[in-house]
């Protein structure tokens, strides 16, 4: 009995050992992990530029480009140019050129959706030359671009955009997707300069980083950012800025008679970082007037932004979705052709002075 059990145990152990040898392995030193991928369109082909750090030689990341007609064979073309197995699992930033974005990216996004290896990824649109941006990032650390975008999402004016929101906006109806855009400043530094809004899968409308902050207020849970506007108060004029800490928003549709209105309530908790000397917050009227000025400025600019979305036929805020809740037989085409252009917008902002700084 006992020998029988040990023979069985031996067989199981042996087969486990033998069979585990069949598992395909990939060792970090022996694969080419890429961190940044850029896609462009040239002469009817898709061009991929890939950066991956060469871990065998210290600090020598390389940029490799390949051309193909579809994304699947692109991988093969790239693989032919590097010494070791290409691994997609560590891709952090996917950069799309403006030209490619304007011609449609659904095929590319589908390949992202189907690849189980792709995990934490930020998609961005490059304004200006994609190659230049990638070449500039070669000098920095491999995750430089990712950190740059992460930082502007967390603390800057860019709403959160990751794989999940991309799927949600791309495959879901009643909302349009958007990605941050990267650009080069005159000194050759990369910076996030705004948001590219897509209609279906085509780049349609671009907004600046200041407008993007308003979009962040109206759509994202995280409302951290720096807001500035021209303050005109007590006969003085100045440019005034402050930091928004957190807050909440809700949007709903009000129907009366023939007019349909999108009403957006915004509550923002702010911290004041600098004050012109002619404002005294201890003074009740100064305090209220400052609050009203800020509230008015944000509301008006947000309304203008919403109207410009309407004019350019994009809906990054997902107004179609709120509308769908109350309308039976909602269809995307009908909404954007007949209803969306006629909507009115009203934004109401409430400002709470949470912190006014430690100095006086």
């Amino acid at each position, binding site marked *: 009995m006992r020998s029988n059990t040990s023979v069985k145990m031996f067989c199981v152990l042996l087969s486990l050992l033998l*069979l585990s040898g069949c598992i395909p392995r990939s060792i970090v030193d022996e694969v080419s992990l890429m961190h940044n991928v850029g896609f462009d369109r040239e002469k009817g082909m898709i061009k991929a530029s890939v950066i991956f750090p060469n871990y065998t030689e210290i600090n020598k990341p390389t940029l490799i480009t390949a051309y193909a007609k579809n994304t699947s064979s692109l991988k093969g073309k790239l693989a032919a140019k590097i010494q070791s197995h290409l691994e997609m699992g560590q891709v952090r930033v996917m950069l799309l050129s403006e030209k490619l974005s304007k011609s449609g990216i659904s095929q590319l996004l589908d390949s992202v959706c189907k690849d189980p290896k792709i995990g934490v990824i930020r998609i961005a649109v490059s304004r200006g030359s994609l190659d230049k941006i990638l070449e500039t990032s070669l000098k920095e650390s491999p995750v430089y671009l990712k950190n740059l975008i992460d930082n502007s999402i967390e603390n800057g004016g860019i709403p959160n955009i990751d794989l*999940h929101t991309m799927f949600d906006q791309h495959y879901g109806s009643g909302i349009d997707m958007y990605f941050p855009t990267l650009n080069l400043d005159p000194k050759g530094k990369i910076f996030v300069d705004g948001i590219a809004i897509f209609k279906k899968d085509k780049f349609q409308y671009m907004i600046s980083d200041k407008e993007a902050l308003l979009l962040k207020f109206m759509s994202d849970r995280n409302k951290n950012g720096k807001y500035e506007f021209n303050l005109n108060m007590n006969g003085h004029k100045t440019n005034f800025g402050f930091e928004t800490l957190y807050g909440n928003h809700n949007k709903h549709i009000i129907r009366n008679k023939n007019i349909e209105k999108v009403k957006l309530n915004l509550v923002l908790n702010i911290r004041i970082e600098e004050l012109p000397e002619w404002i005294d917050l201890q003074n009740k009227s100064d305090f209220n007037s400052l609050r009203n000025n800020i509230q008015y400025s944000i509301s008006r600019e947000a309304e203008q932004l919403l109207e410009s979305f309407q004019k350019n036929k994009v809906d990054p805020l997902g107004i179609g979705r709120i509308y769908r809740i109350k309308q039976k037989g909602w269809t995307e085409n009908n909404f954007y052709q007949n209803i969306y252009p006629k909507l009115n917008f009203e934004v109401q902002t409430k400002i709470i002075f949470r912190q006014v700084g430690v100095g006086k």
Partner: protein
Amino acid sequence: MGVKVKEQFQVSTFFTFFLIHASQTSVGLLNYQSIISKNAQQDAWISLIMTGVSIHIVLFIIFKLLDEKNNDLVAVHHFCFGKILGNILSLLVLIYFLSSNLTIFRTYIEIIQEWVYPTIKTWQLSIIFGLTIYYIVSSGFRNIAGFSFWGVIIPSFLFGLIYFPMKHMDFTYLLPAFSHSIKDLLQSAKASIMLFLGFEWILMYFPFLKGSSKVPKWAHIGTFYSLFIYLIITFVSFLYFNQEVLQHIPWATLMMVKIVQFSFVERFEYIFIFIWLLVILPPLCISLWSCSRIAKRTFSIQPKVSIGIFLFLIGVTSVSLKEFENIDKLANFNGNVGFYFIYIYIPLLLVIKLIKNGFIKSKIG
């Protein structure tokens, strides 16, 4: 006629909970969202509740079917249809149990191939899993019960992972609620049956449970717990994914795990898939054990022999199922057979049994 199982081979009554719950949770939990929401969309959770309630009714029927004298399915078959016809029916049930086993077995291998190792061969994984299953099943029912216990306890920490998608929930995705017709709801309810299938194996292991009077209570608690967990996961995934997105991602649960990140492990879905083996093994073992039990009770084949034969059959069929479409078809087929088995065959069996009982009584009277 029924069997008396010696007490040393029996397990405590509360193990019914783990056996029932473990045999219901399997691969279906990884990809059911897109299947059940095909018709009822955001209202599919209502269908899920409908199915859950109906499963409680079926369980009630099952415990009416089994009694002191006829305490497993084979005995009931003998009682209702006589020896020959009864054995043929038992053989058909055996084939159905085997196909449930095959579905889970092959789908799990597909998940590993699709998500982790695209180039690994089916036969390699079949041998590894086959040996493991043989090892567990051949050591008897008590071992399987123990394995079901740990197969419920250990993976339950995975449940805490719903915290990550919960951070991104959007409550408007459930609106407009109650906007689908009864027909849509019923179609979704039918699709969600595969989540609950597996509990019917109690028809074979019922004699192995101690104190049979308290078994129904634990069985109902087990089913209710499954329903409860399914509902929570359904709500979280419906609030996390838009309905249109769900139709684009077949493995919704794994896609939710994808966003889980710790500072020490970035891709939790790989760990999740392999921990899921612990969830897969109990249903595989219980169904295979039930098959071998039917073979023993009807044709007096030794379990060690029959388990080997069954595993060989499962391995061979798994390897021969090459295209993903066939695997989907198999899962569909199995779900359909299960649907007719629990909703039509079992109530029918109860009716026949009651008629026969009345007939015998009137004869004696």
